[in-house]
C-alpha cells in the first residue's frame, strides 16, 4: 500500500479520524460546545481532500464549461475494491454537506443529553465515513462492509434517547437491518457463485455473456439480483421493504431521522446505481422493469398512507417512501429496452437521480430542522399542535412552508425541477406510464403537505408563547434553506455537476 493509495482513500479516513478525536475530546473538555465546533472544523479536512481529488481528475474550470473536456478520470486502489471517480466525489460532497448541517442542527438536542455527547457526534461521523466509502465501493464485499458501517452507527443513534420509543426504534432498525443484510449477503453470494468474482467490472463482463436476460436459465443470477434489490430496498426505504420507516422516524431523535432520511438514502442510491449500472447492465432491461414497478408501488403506498397521518414525523416517514419512489423512476429510466433484450443507456436517468437527491437533501433537511426546533419546544409532533405556528414562530413557519411547497414539487422550487427532470427521463426511457403515475402521485401528495401549511397559517395558536431559535439551528436552517432555494432558482450548477458525475460512471453495455 503506497502513499498514493492512502491519499486516494484519505477522505473517509479523515472523517473517521475526526470522529475518533471528537470522542477523545469529550473526555478532556468541560465546555461541550467545543465538540460540534471541533467536528465542523474537522470536516474541512475531508472536504479539502475531496476538492483536491476532484482537481486531480481534471481541470474543474474546463469541466464546468464543457462536459466534452472531461476524460474518464478515476483512481482505484486496494485491488480495485474502491474507485474514486467524479461519481463518488459528487456523493462525497453531498454526504459531507448533509453531515455538517445535521451536526449543526443537533447542537441543541445533544446539549440536553447528560452523557455521551462526544459519542453522538462520533457515531454521526462514523456513519458518514461508511457513506463516503459506499459511494466509491466497487466490489461486493467492500459494499457490504460499507453498508454495515453506515447502518450500525445509526442503530445506536436511533436508540440514543432513553425513552422506550427510542429504544424500540433502535431495536427494530437493528433487526430489520440485519434481516435485509442477510438477504443481500445471500444475493451477493449467489452472484459470486454465478460469476466467480465480486468485482463489479468482472461481474459485468460475465453478465454480458449471458443470454435471455433474467429467467429460469440464469436462476442463480436472477435470485441474486432480486435479493440484492431487496437489500437496497431496505436502505432506500422503497416499498415493499419500507415497513420500518414510520416507526423509526417516529421513535428516533429527530436530528438522527434527518440524517437517516437524506445522507443514508443518498449513499444507498449511489451504490445502487453503481452496482446496477456498472455490474448488471447486461440484464438492464429486466431490472429496469423491476425498478419501475417498485417506483410506482413506493410512490403510491407512501402517498396514500401519508394522507391519514396525524404525527408529522410519521408523515415524513411516508413522504420519504414516496420520494424514494420518485427517485427510483430516474433509476429505471436510465435503461431503455424490452425485457430479455439488450438495454441502451439513457444518461438522463441517473443524471436526474443525482439532481433529485441534491434537491431532496436540501428541502428535507430544511423541513426537518424546522421540525426539530418546533418539536423541541412544544414537545409534540402532532400536526394539530402546529396550529397558528405562523404567529408563534413566523420565520420557522415560512421556512417550513417553503420546504413543504418544494416537497410537493411546485414551480419554481428545486424538487419541481427534479421531478420535471425525472419524469422527462422516464418519457425518454420509454416509461411514459410511470411518468403519469408519478405526476398523479405528486398531485395526491399536495394534499398532506398543504394540510400542514393550512394548520400553521389558518388555525388559531393554542398559546402565544414564541418559539425561540438558537444560533446553531438558525445557521443550519438558513444554509439548507438557501441551498434549497438556490437549486430551484438556478439549478444549472447542480445539474451540470450531476451530468459530469454520471459521465464517469462505467456502464458496460
Amino acid at each position, binding site marked *: 500500500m503506497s502513499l498514493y493509495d492512502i491519499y486516494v482513500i484519505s477522505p473517509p479516513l479523515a472523517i473517521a479520524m475526526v470522529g475518533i478525536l471528537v470522542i477523545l475530546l469529550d473526555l478532556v473538555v468541560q465546555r461541550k460546545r467545543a465538540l460540534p465546533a471541533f467536528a465542523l472544523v474537522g470536516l474541512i479536512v475531508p472536504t479539502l481532500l475531496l476538492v483536491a481529488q476532484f482537481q486531480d481528475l481534471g481541470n474543474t474550470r474546463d469541466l464546468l464549461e464543457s462536459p466534452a473536456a472531461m476524460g474518464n478520470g478515476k483512481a482505484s486502489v486496494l485491488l480495485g475494491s474502491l474507485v474514486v471517480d467524479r461519481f463518488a466525489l459528487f456523493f462525497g460532497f453531498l454526504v459531507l454537506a448533509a453531515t455538517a448541517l445535521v451536526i449543526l442542527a443537533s447542537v441543541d438536542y445533544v446539549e440536553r443529553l447528560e452523557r455521551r455527547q462526544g459519542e453522538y457526534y462520533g457515531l454521526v461521523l462514523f456513519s458518514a465515513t461508511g457513506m463516503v466509502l459506499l459511494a466509491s465501493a466497487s466490489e461486493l464485499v467492500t459494499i457490504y462492509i460499507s453498508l454495515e458501517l453506515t447502518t450500525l452507527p445509526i442503530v445506536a443513534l436511533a436508540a440514543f434517547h432513553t425513552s422506550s420509543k427510542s429504544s424500540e426504534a433502535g431495536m427494530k432498525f437493528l433487526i430489520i437491518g440485519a434481516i435485509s443484510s442477510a438477504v443481500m449477503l445471500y444475493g451477493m453470494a449467489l452472484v459470486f457463485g454465478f460469476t466467480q468474482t465480486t468485482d463489479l467490472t468482472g461481474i459485468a463482463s460475465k453478465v454480458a455473456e449471458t443470454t435471455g436476460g433474467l429467467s*429460469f436459465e440464469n436462476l442463480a443470477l*436472477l435470485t441474486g439480483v432480486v435479493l440484492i434489490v431487496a437489500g437496497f430496498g431496505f436502505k432506500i426505504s422503497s416499498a415493499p421493504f419500507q*415497513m420500518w420507516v414510520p416507526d423509526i422516524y417516529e421513535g428516533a431523535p429527530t436530528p438522527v431521522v434527518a440524517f437517516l432520511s437524506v445522507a443514508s438514502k443518498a449513499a444507498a442510491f449511489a451504490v445502487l446505481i453503481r452496482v446496477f449500472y456498472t455490474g448488471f447492465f447486461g440484464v438492464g432491461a429486466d431490472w429496469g422493469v423491476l425498478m419501475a414497478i417498485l417506483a410506482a408501488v413506493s410512490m403510491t403506498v407512501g402517498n396514500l398512507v401519508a394522507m391519514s397521518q396525524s404525527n408529522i414525523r410519521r408523515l415524513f416517514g411516508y413522504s420519504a417512501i414516496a420520494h424514494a419512489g420518485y427517485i427510483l423512476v430516474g433509476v429505471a429510466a436510465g435503461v431503455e429496452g424490452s425485457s430479455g433484450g439488450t438495454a441502451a443507456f439513457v444518461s438522463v436517468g441517473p443524471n436526474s437521480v443525482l439532481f433529485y437527491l441534491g434537491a431532496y437533501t436540501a428541502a428535507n433537511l430544511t423541513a426537518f430542522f424546522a421540525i426539530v426546533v418546533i418539536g423541541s419546544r412544544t414537545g409534540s409532533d402532532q400536526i394539530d399542535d402546529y396550529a397558528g405556528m405562523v404567529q408563534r414562530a413566523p420565520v420557522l413557519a415560512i421556512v417550513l412552508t417553503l420546504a413543504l411547497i418544494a416537497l410537493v414539487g411546485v414551480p419554481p422550487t428545486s424538487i419541481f*425541477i427534479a421531478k420535471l427532470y425525472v419524469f422527462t427521463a422516464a418519457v425518454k426511457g420509454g416509461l411514459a406510464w410511470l411518468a403519469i403515475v408519478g405526476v398523479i402521485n405528486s398531485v395526491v401528495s399536495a394534499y398532506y403537505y398543504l394540510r400542514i401549511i393550512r394548520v400553521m397559517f389558518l388555525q388559531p395558536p393554542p398559546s402565544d408563547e414564541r418559539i425561540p431559535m438558537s444560533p446553531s439551528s438558525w445557521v443550519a436552517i438558513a444554509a439548507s434553506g438557501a441551498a434549497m432555494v438556490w437549486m430551484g432558482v438556478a439549478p444549472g450548477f447542480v445539474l451540470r455537476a450531476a451530468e459530469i458525475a454520471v459521465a464517469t460512471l462505467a456502464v458496460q453495455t
Partner: protein
Amino acid sequence: MVSEASVWAIFLLPLAAFVIIALVIRPFFNRYAGLSGLLLIAALAVSLFLSILALGAVAMGQEPELQAYRWLDLGDAVIELSPLLDPLTAVMAVVVTSVSLMVQIYSLGYMKGDPGYARYFAYMALFTSAMLGLVLVANILVLYAFWELVGVSSYLLIGFWHDRPAAAAAAKKAFIITRIGDLGLLIAILYLFFQADEFAAAGMNAFHIPDIWQAVQPLGAGGAILAGTGLTWLTLGIFAAAVGKSGQFPLHSWLPDAMEGPTPVSALIHAATMVAAGVFLVGRFYPVFLAAESTLTVVALIGAFTALMAATMGLVMNDIKRVMAYSTVSQLGYMMAALGLGAFPAAIFHLVTHASFKALLFLGAGSVNHATGTFNMQYMGGLRQHMPLTYLLVVIGGLSLVGIFPLSGFWSKDEILVSAWTGGGVVEPWVSQATLIMLGIGVLLTAFYTLRMIYMTFHGEFRGGVEQEQLDTGADSHGDDVQDTGDHGGLHLAESPVVMVAPMVILGIGAVVLGFISNPQWIDLFGVPKHWITELFEHGVAPVLSSDAPHLVLPKFSLQIAAISTVIALIGIGLATAMYARGSRQYSSAVRRDRDPLEAGGPLHRLLAEKYYIDALYEDAVVRLAFYRAFAGAIDWLDKNVVDRIGDVIATIFRNVGRIFLAPLQTGEVQAYGLAVALGTLIILLGFLLV
C-alpha cells in the same frame, strides 16, 4: 463600446428600482414616497443612455459578444438566459426607455398627493423592466415569462385604483382577454418543444429565437424543420398572442376599458409600449412569418380590418381617452397590416413614430383632465385660451396622427400605404388591394375623429367641466382620475405644471422630427443616411433569410401616394371643421346630447356608439349565456352528479385502502415487518419467473 453588462443593465436598472421601491421604500420609508419616482427616473435615464449606446453600436454594425447563461436543460431543449441584440431590440429598447422616462417625469406632477404614490412607481418600474426583458431576451420561454409579466403589471396598473369597481373590472377584462391570445403563444412553444429533437439534430436549440429563424430555411435535402401546416399553426399561435396584446379584432375590446387606469399609464402601456408588444412579437419572429404566406394574409387582413373598424368607433366616443384608445387600436391595425404585407421596417417605423405622438396625445388628455376634472369632451370646450401650450402640443400630436406633412406620422403612415399600393409579392394581390382600400378609408376617419376631438376639447366655449357633469348626471364624474384626494378632481382652468408640460414638449419634438429617421428623399440629411431606419431593419433580418424566401417590402417614397393620402386627410379635416368648428358652440349644458352632428346618423350612430355590440355579444352571449349558463351549467351538473360522486367514491376507496388495507399491516410488530421483507422478495422472484 457596448459590453454585455451594459445590455443587461438596460433591463436590470428598472428592475432594481422596482425591488428598492417595493421592498425598501414602500414598507419602511413611505413618508419619503417622493423618492420612489426620482429613483425610477434616474434608473430609466441611465437605461435610456445605455439603449442609445446599444442602438448606436448596432447601427454601426458592431455587435458585442453576448454570453448565454444556461439555466436549465430539458433533454434537447436548453433554456438559456441571453440577450439578443439586433436592430429591432435596440430600437424597441430606446422607445420603451424614452417614453417611460417621459411618462415618469409627467407622473411626478400628475400623481402628486396620491396615497398610492410609491405603489404606483413600483408597478411602473416592474412594467418597464418586464417590457425591456421581453424586448431583450433571446429565448422564447423566457420571452413568454416576460410576456406574462407584462400582462400582470398591466393588470396591476389598470386596476391601480382598485377601489373603483370600473377599474377593477377593466383590469380583469384586460387580463382575461389577453390571456386568451396568450394561449396561442403557449401552444406555439409546446409545438417547438416537440420539435426539439429535430432542432438538436441540426445543432440548434428549439427555444433560441435566432435558431427558430434558421429553422424555416431548407436543410439540405430534408427540407426545413418548420414548414407546411405546422409552420402555419406555429405562426398563427404567435399571432394570436399578438392579437390579444395589441388589441386587434376580435380581441380588441379590453383596450378602451383599460382607460380606467391612471392616464400616464395609458400613455405608457396602452399607447406606446405594451400594446406595441404584439407588433414587436410578430416582428421578432418575422423571418418565420415570411415563410408562412397564409398566416401573413391573415395578419394583413385582420390588421386592416381592425384599423378601419376601430376608427369608425372612434368617431362617436365622447370620452377623450376612449377616442384615443380606439385610435390606438386603429393605428396598431396599420402596423399589423404592414407586417402582413411584408413591410416589416415600415411597421416598426410606424410603431416608433406612433409611440411619440400617441403618448403625447394621452399626456395631453391627462393635462386636460388636470384642468377640467373630467374626460368627457361634452363638458370641455374652449380650453385653448386657458391651456395654450397643451393645445399646441395636442394639435401637433393630432396632426401627426392624421399624417400631415411634415410631421412624423406622415412619413410612417405613408410607407405603409406605399407598401399596400405596390404589393410586393409576399401576399396575393387581392390582399394588398383590400388592405389598401381599408387603410385609405381609415385615413379619412382618422382625420375626422382627431379633429373632432380637438374641436370639442379646445374650441368653442367652455361647457362647465366636472362641476357641470356632476349636475347633469347627479353622480360622481366617471373617468375622473383622482376623486379621493380631490387634487385634480376639481376644476381649475389653467395650464398644467412644468413637470407635466416639459415631457410633453419633448415628446412633441419627437412627433415633429422622428419622421426624418426614415429620410425618404435626401442624401445624408443631418447625418441621417437615406432610408436609414428601413435599411437598418432590413440588415437586421437579411442574414437569416435565404435567397428564395419572399423579400421584405421596402417602400420608397411615392409622391402620388403622399398626395392622395394628404388629400383624403384634408377631406376628413374639412368635414370635421364644417361640423364641429362652429357648431361646437351649440352644446350648452342641458341640450348638449342632441346636438352632436353625427347623431343624425341614427341607427348607424347607435351601432358605433355601442361598439358594434361586440362587448354586449361577448358579455351577454358568450360569457353569460354560453359560458355561465350553458357551459358552466353543464359542468356544474356534471360536477355535482358525476365528478363529486366519483370523487367521493375514490376518496372513500383511497382513504380506506390506506386505513383498512395498508395501515393494519403497520402493526408495529417487528416480526410482521420481517415477514413483509421476505414476502416482498418472494413476490418479486415469482413475478420474474412467471411473467
